[in-house]
């Protein structure tokens, strides 16, 4: 059972449908006991970092998630859900994240050449950096996934699972132990995305 964390941010319907399509059982929940009973945790999220981080804190789910991760439970964050896994974000100010992967969230405008459109919207190809990572066992270099974002994770190379090229290398996916994150939307990335979710169900 995968607990899809409902903290009042984003549309969880598509995420649930994509797990249904690969035959994985999910529950959309904000209940600590349900999250505790699940084998895996999925942290979705769209919108602004500050609002999402505040909702996680106010609901106490930040602590629940951290405790579960400490016990070894696999966690996957998607899009803003991935950004929340890092130490802090510089989206409209400076805001604290969950601190589960070392690094920080910075505007992609800091690194991509002038003239490229922001947000980075569309299908872009993956360059897999950690080929031994179980999350990427079904992915080939050059496979395309769907991105929609204006901020990226600036982190040490050792935490980067995959990058994408948007005039500069951008973190597409990161991990630290049993904590995984995808900047792109696997639930909107066709078969490539479904295979990444499948791999998450198998880690």
């Amino acid at each position, binding site marked *: 059972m995968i607990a899809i964390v409902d903290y009042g941010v984003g*549309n969880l*319907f*598509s995420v649930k*449908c*994509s797990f*249904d*399509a690969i035959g994985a059982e999910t529950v959309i929940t904000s209940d600590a006991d349900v999250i505790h009973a699940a084998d895996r945790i999925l942290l979705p999220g*769209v*919108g*602004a970092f500050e609002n999402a981080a505040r909702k996680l804190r106010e609901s106490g789910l930040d602590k629940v998630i951290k405790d579960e991760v400490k016990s070894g439970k696999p966690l996957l964050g998607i899009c803003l859900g991935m950004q929340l896994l890092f130490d802090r974000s510089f989206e409209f100010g400076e805001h604290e994240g969950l601190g589960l992967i070392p690094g920080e969230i910075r505007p992609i405008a800091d690194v991509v050449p002038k003239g490229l*459109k*922001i*947000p*980075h*919207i*569309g*299908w*872009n*190809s993956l360059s897999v950096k950690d080929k031994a990572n179980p999350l990427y066992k079904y992915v080939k270099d050059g496979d*395309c996934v*769907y*991105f*929609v974002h204006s901020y990226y994770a600036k982190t040490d190379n050792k935490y980067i699972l995959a990058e994408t*090229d*948007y005039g500069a290398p951008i973190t597409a996916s990161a991990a630290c132990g049993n904590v995984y994150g995808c900047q792109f*939307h696997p*639930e*909107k*990335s*066709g*078969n*490539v*995305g*479904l295979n990444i979710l499948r791999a998450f169900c198998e880690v």
Partner: protein
Amino acid sequence: MITKRIIPCLDVKNGRVVKGTNFEGLSDVSSPIELAKYYSANGADELVFYDITASAEGRELFTDILRETAKHVFIPLTVGGGINTLDDFDRVLKCGADKVSVNSGAIKNPNLVHDAAKKYGKQCVVLSADVKRVDGIFRVFAKGGRENTGMDAIEWIKKCAANGAGEIVLNSIDTDGVKGGFDLEMLEAVCNVVDVPVIASGGAGKIEDFITLFNTLPKVDAGLAASIFHFGEVKISDLKNAMVQAGIPTRKD
């Protein structure tokens, strides 16, 4: 590098796709769900569902179809038609839409784009503009292209992008249905004033029209078409192969 997107557009009325023809292996060509699955399996990068229903029952049917499509199709889904309020955004986003396209609704309510972008994020708000030359000036048309608003299209699109539209679908009424190629002149004029993705619509008749579009205007992000895909005149898989051969960044699933 980011790839150029190919987007089939499905007009849905009372739960059925308005235009359609026979495809091999597709039993019900006017079922939006079946057609969406077919396009997704054959390389479409995104789908647009356009609700052209007028009645409340039809609207309910449309959201049922959206929900059902989201269960089977795992590529981005944009929904348009009859979007006039934030409640309309809410209604379709809850059913699996990723982006919402506004047209007449944004003309009637000048705050709609801004309010929706603030609530759901710019990435969620698509401005769709029907544009036609009147005495040599690009003008915005409303009500499905029937009514000249008198507004300058370039100014309108610029303003909507500044207010939070995250993408622009530019539909040229002048080239729509002619099948002689996209309206490159109009597209260029729009690309020059906005820095959000621009989706070309209206005029595609054959594969070469897409190649010309992307080669001539590198700033255009996507090509949208309806009948040439629905009638099988252009197969998306053939189009994608031709794009790869022409050196255009293309996604192959």
